[in-house]
């Protein structure tokens, strides 16, 4: 087989794996969302479809596929059709640069655990893509020709732009410490227990809060605030088009959690674990362990996302804007200055 063909096949395999893995994880996030909400309410939750209700998500998706797809008469049909595609497409495109581990060697061929390995603007790509995600929501709100949808879409635009700023500024401290935008290099810079959550705790909190706002999760779910706006931007969507928005929300949640793991929790690095296992470098087994560590760090954050949703009330719009512009943004800026000053001092005395 020619080297080009092998490369293409490996790439396709990775894409299929990630897309399916993402859809599955979104499906099971919906299941756990319902289960955890039930536990928080002293209920039992879905338990009818399959053992412990584990096949509930498939039943839900099946239902969404069979439902009638209604397009409002006065809607802008082109954009009404495109909006959910943008949402889900963007949410998935981010996974092109997210690494789940280092590379491993199979049959003399080095396989990277990323769809697009070695991209030196990985972090910028993630941020650029998550900014495009707002188009999906805003277009959905605007094209539906429904005032509630429009309000939801506008709120989403305002909210995402406000919080993107503090989110982007909060990671500058991380970038100064690692000196790279490549996510793999950022993870390697945290090796040996130098996790950024300990070095940049303020940045972590800002990033956490901003990612709640970016993924439109409670307490920042103003774009879909159901008591005020019916369903917000997806009021006029039904069937699988609504399902795509739903999937995109959960995919974004996984993305935000994965970014937190990579930037602040040391990715697949655990001090002493790989030395203790003493596996040969580059074997697929190491990659498997790395993926396991990554997932083990991802799951608690996802639980936190769901836990917060069932604990906190929604912000009011003015509170949202106050928090975004008057609290988070100055804190993020202060964090940059403090980090820069400390790094300069440490470098001056030759510690770093």
């Amino acid at each position, binding site marked *: 087989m020619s080297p080009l063909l092998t490369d293409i096949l490996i790439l396709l395999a990775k894409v299929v794996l990630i897309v399916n893995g993402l859809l599955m994880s979104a499906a099971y996030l919906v299941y756990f969302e319902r289960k*955890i909400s*039930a*536990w*928080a*309410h*002293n*209920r*039992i939750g879905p338990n009818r479809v399959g053992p412990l209700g584990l096949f509930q998500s498939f039943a839900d998706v099946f239902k969404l596929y069979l439902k009638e797809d209604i397009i409002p008469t006065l809607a802008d049909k082109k954009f009404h059709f495109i909006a959910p595609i943008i949402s889900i497409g963007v949410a998935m495109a981010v996974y092109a640069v997210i690494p789940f581990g280092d590379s491993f060697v199979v049959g003399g061929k080095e396989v990277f655990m990323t769809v697009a390995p070695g991209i030196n603007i990985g972090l910028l790509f993630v941020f650029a893509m998550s900014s495009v995600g707002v188009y999906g929501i805003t277009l959905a709100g605007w094209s539906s020709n429904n005032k509630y949808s429009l309000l939801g879409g506008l709120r989403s635009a305002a909210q995402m732009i406000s919080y993107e700023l503090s989110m982007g500024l909060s990671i500058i401290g991380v970038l100064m410490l690692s000196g790279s935008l490549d996510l793999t290099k950022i993870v390697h810079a945290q090796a040996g227990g130098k996790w950024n959550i300990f070095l940049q705790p303020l940045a972590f*909190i800002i990033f956490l809060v901003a990612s709640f706002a970016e993924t439109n999760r409670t307490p920042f779910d103003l774009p879909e605030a159901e008591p005020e706006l019916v369903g917000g931007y997806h009021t006029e969507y039904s069937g699988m088009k609504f399902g795509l928005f739903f999937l995109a929300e959960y995919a974004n949640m996984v993305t935000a959690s994965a970014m937190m793991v990579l930037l602040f929790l040391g990715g697949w690095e655990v001090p002493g674990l790989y030395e203790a296992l003493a596996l040969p470098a580059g074997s697929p087994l190491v990659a498997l362990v790395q993926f396991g560590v990554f997932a083990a760090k991802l799951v608690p954050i996802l639980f936190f996302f769901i*836990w*917060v949703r*069932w*604990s*906190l009330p929604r912000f009011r719009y003015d509170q949202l804007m106050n*928090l975004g512009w008057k609290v988070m943004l100055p804190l993020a800026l202060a964090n940059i200055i403090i980090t820069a000053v400390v790094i300069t001092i440490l470098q001056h005395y030759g510690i770093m």
Partner: protein
Amino acid sequence: MNVNHNTEKDRLNFWEKLYLPEIARGLGLTLRQMFKKPMTRQYPEERWEPTGSYRGRPVLVLEEDGERCVACSLCSRVCPALAIEVQAAETTREKERYPVKFEINMLRCIYCGFCEEVCPEEAIVMSKDYELVFTNQEDAIMGKDKLLIPIAQLQDRLEFLRRFK
């Protein structure tokens, strides 16, 4: 100007304005709930057995030698929802009267229990039956065939009435 100062700034103290400690408190509260036993019941498999004080579907008491009802029509008279229809007739039995027709429209019934309260013979009582589902309106009008229940099944309610009525 009559301005009432009760803004968020005045109401919250420093720690509450920081949000984070209060958020942690709230999260702790929900986390505690997650480990409690569910309060819900697996309905079709686990059914709730009401006590004697429960007012379910009104039924007529059926004794060994026939129904207790003497068709005095007091229940029909007192019924606030006009759900009960009684037609009396004569019989050779000791009580001399019996209902030829006794119908309760379960779409009208409000389970107030006035019929039971007013009944001089203790012939109409509220049962424990709460699973009332109809697929058409005719099914909801219950005649004597559905209303007469053997006295043995109504002991809890009769006991309750003897003690508390």
